[in-house]
């Protein structure tokens, strides 16, 4: 079903809206946004006239398949982060819904949020703010294993060591505190935490924007490895087209809360159809030239 003003037809085929078992074959969507909308503020003020609400995300729909890497691009204020936070249940949509394995979730209910978080985890933009300064980084990485998996201490410890190795850090570093790490190392620990509870999808909100080029390359190399080696699906939010192109299969261009264009990443960025995408690509090309 398509609403008027809904996102334009994607280059890829329409996701099946099937439910239940038959929806769980390889090509059916893992995670879907179904006309997700989120507005902030507004409503009746106590004094004076009601303020109009700001619609940060406006009827966005997409489907993410297993192993797929979806890039979300757009300028600042286009609603990328708001959308990302709804995909992991940190924010509730004002209208529309997020669906997992074909089933619509009610993110107002903690049970549904939990179901979502068992499958979908997140990596944040600012690695320094994403780690509790008073906890060891090992404890931060362990948290999802406690809260979502209920694993015992021995199993958690083994998994932390495995994850640290996987993101290129010595397992012994788990006992240190965040201030002992550089931004790039902290961001890799952030990735380790997102992987801790064995999710199927990781949503990354501008994970390399706070890092400088050389450190960014370290994190991108890790993400490429995850993409190729583990069948994980990634949702990668960024304003940097070159980074998105280096990592993603598909791209979705957002502007003022709406999807303006969606399709295979290389096709869209090499030959954009929409005027706004052209603008973005031109601006990025001019800088690179």
């Amino acid at each position: 079903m398509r609403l008027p003003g809904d996102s334009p037809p994607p280059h890829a085929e329409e996701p099946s809206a099937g439910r239940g078992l038959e929806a769980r074959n390889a090509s059916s969507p893992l995670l879907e946004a179904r006309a997700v909308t989120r507005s902030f503020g507004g409503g009746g003020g106590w004094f004076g006239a009601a303020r109009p609400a700001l619609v940060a995300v406006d009827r966005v729909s997409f489907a993410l398949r297993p192993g797929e890497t979806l890039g979300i691009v757009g300028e600042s204020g286009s609603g990328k982060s708001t959308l990302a936070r709804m995909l992991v249940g940190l924010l509730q949509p004002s209208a529309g819904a997020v669906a997992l394995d074909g089933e619509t979730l009610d993110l107002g209910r903690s049970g549904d949020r939990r179901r979502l978080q068992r499958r979908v985890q997140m990596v944040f933009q600012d690695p320094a703010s994403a780690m509790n300064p008073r906890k060891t980084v090992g404890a931060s990485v362990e948290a999802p294993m406690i809260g979502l998996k209920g694993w015992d201490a021995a199993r958690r410890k083994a998994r932390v060591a495995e994850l640290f190795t996987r993101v290129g850090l010595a397992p012994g570093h788990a006992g240190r505190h965040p201030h002992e790490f550089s931004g790039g190392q902290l961001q890799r620990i952030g990735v380790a935490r997102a992987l801790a509870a064995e999710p199927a999808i990781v949503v990354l909100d501008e994970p390399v924007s706070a890092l400088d080029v050389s450190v960014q390359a370290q994190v991108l190399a890790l993400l490429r490895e995850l993409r190729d080696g583990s069948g994980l699906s990634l949702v990668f939010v960024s304003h940097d087209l070159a980074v998105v192109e280096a990592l993603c299969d598909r791209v979705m261009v957002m502007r003022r809360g709406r999807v303006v264009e969606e399709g295979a990443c290389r096709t869209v960025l090499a030959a954009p159809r929409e005027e706004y995408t052209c603008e973005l690509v031109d601006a990025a090309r001019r800088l690179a030239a």
Partner: protein
Amino acid sequence: MSVLARLLRQPFAVAGLALVLGFVALALAAPFLPLLDPNATEPANRLAAPGAAGHLLGTDQLGRDILARLIFGLRVSLAVGVAATLAAALVGGIIGLVAAFYGRWVDGALMRLVDVLMAFPYLLLALAVVAALGPGLTNAALAIAIVNVPFFARAVRGQALGIVRRDYVAAARLAGFSDLRILVSEVLPNVAPLLIVTAATTIGWMILETAGLSFLGLGAQPPQADLGSMLGDGRKVVAAAPHVAAAPGVVVFVLVVGLNLLGDGLRDALDPRMKGAETGVPQPATRVERGRAASGTLGHEASGALANSVLDVRALSTAFATPRGSFPAIRDVSFALRAGEALGIVGESGSGKSVTALSLARLAPTPPGTIVSGEVRIGGDDVLDLSLDALRRLRGDRIAYVFQDPLTTLNPLMRIDAQIVEAIRPGPGEGAKALRARARALMADVGLPDPGRIARAYPHELSGGQRQRVGVAMALANAPDVLIADEPTTALDATTQGRILELFARIRRERGAALIFVSHDVGVVAHLCDRIAVMYAGEIVEEGPARAVAERPLHPYAARLIACAPQLGQPDKPLAPIPGAPPAIDARPDGCAFAPRCDHAIDACRAGPIPLEDAGDDRRVRCIRWRELLGEAA
């Protein structure tokens, strides 16, 4: 350094600590000391003077031993003060945490309640509570605790509000933690220092307030002694026997002073800004101590003085004090700029780009920074020799800065036009009206849309790109010769970034200002600048015409830096990260600083300092193997 060590460095805090520990020891030891029964009356020996037989401090109007009453009274007052403080901290802390965590109506309701409590004069409120519950020490303590809850609630809420917005709290939610668990394991540990400080600085007052209630006869009931009731007893006979009131008065005074000294010391010790090796008042200009001259030898002469340069930097070195000594963050930085020329400085985080930029107008923070060698010549003057007054005139007039996010430098409470007007140095006889007109002209000049509306706006009402234009307008206010922009577009998306870069290009063309543009994005710098300087570990390792350096870097570090940036249109570019990390300023290797990470390093690279060598075509490079490597590549 630990909190205790930092506490012990403060003489007043140590004095406070000694006093408080002494009083606490006395109070704890009271039952074991050879004291008389504090409540035993001896009517025959009333109002004995201090020093009377068996009564060191004399007796009161019932003939009770004042020393015994004082020490037992101290015990009671301390216990009540501590209990009331703990109760207030617990309840206030919970209110503050819950209000900040749940926000919205929970916050509104709780804070309204706290405001109501705070609106009453505290003594009146305490009196009302005691009146309702009846007099007695427990009720007095309860009243004092209730009266102090708002202080704790407000302080904790303020701090917690900042913490609940942190991403690690969101991460804990995603980890499936319950609200209670998040509050206890993520938020509480981060507000605990504040809670401790608030408790330490209020406990003195709470003891005084409890004493006040006892003094009025609403706290400790006879015959029990606390410091307040003893003062009350003493007041009745103050004319005949002043010592009865004086003894508890002195103890209360000294105790409260001690507690407050300790509390203030603790607050300073827990302040993270006190952690540095060197503490002291920030100075208006970086300290210059060019004692060790002649450090500017390496590659300095290679840079040669440039004819008609507006800015000429020679062998500039700035050191920072660290707990392990003073180490240079930048060393031997030399470059020159002609009018209208643009130099891009690139390098990894911590390579010294910002320290270089800031040192030019002596803006690097002192403490801990010191400029230890070099010259910065602007139009003939050496900036490092200028008086503070001359330096102030120089900043803004001849050299001006644009920073990464002007939100941190703009005054949040001032309208945009007022801030721009403030940046303009008025010409002779130029009135407010003329200044405002100039501000408008500047705003139009930097391409702010609708200057009329934006002039009346506050900084938070503008977008990132608009704020950056305001920052540029302020920097241009006095038509500086040199404009220094430190990562002015890093926080912006590509579209906005492109527009701001166009603005910089236009300013150069039209105003002929020289530009120093700091960035870690080689692409951006090559796009905008005539020349590029690549910095590593505080040194310029390569310098030359922008296009040539970006397309054919000579230094292995510059080559790796360019290779690891993704490029639009090349999705399969390998993006080989540079292994390892740059050295900290106190762990810089001898010889080539890049050697530990360089694929081409040989023993000779580690042997000693590498000079910045002239490589022809107006290029310079700090690598002993650049010629060989160039041959290999060709």
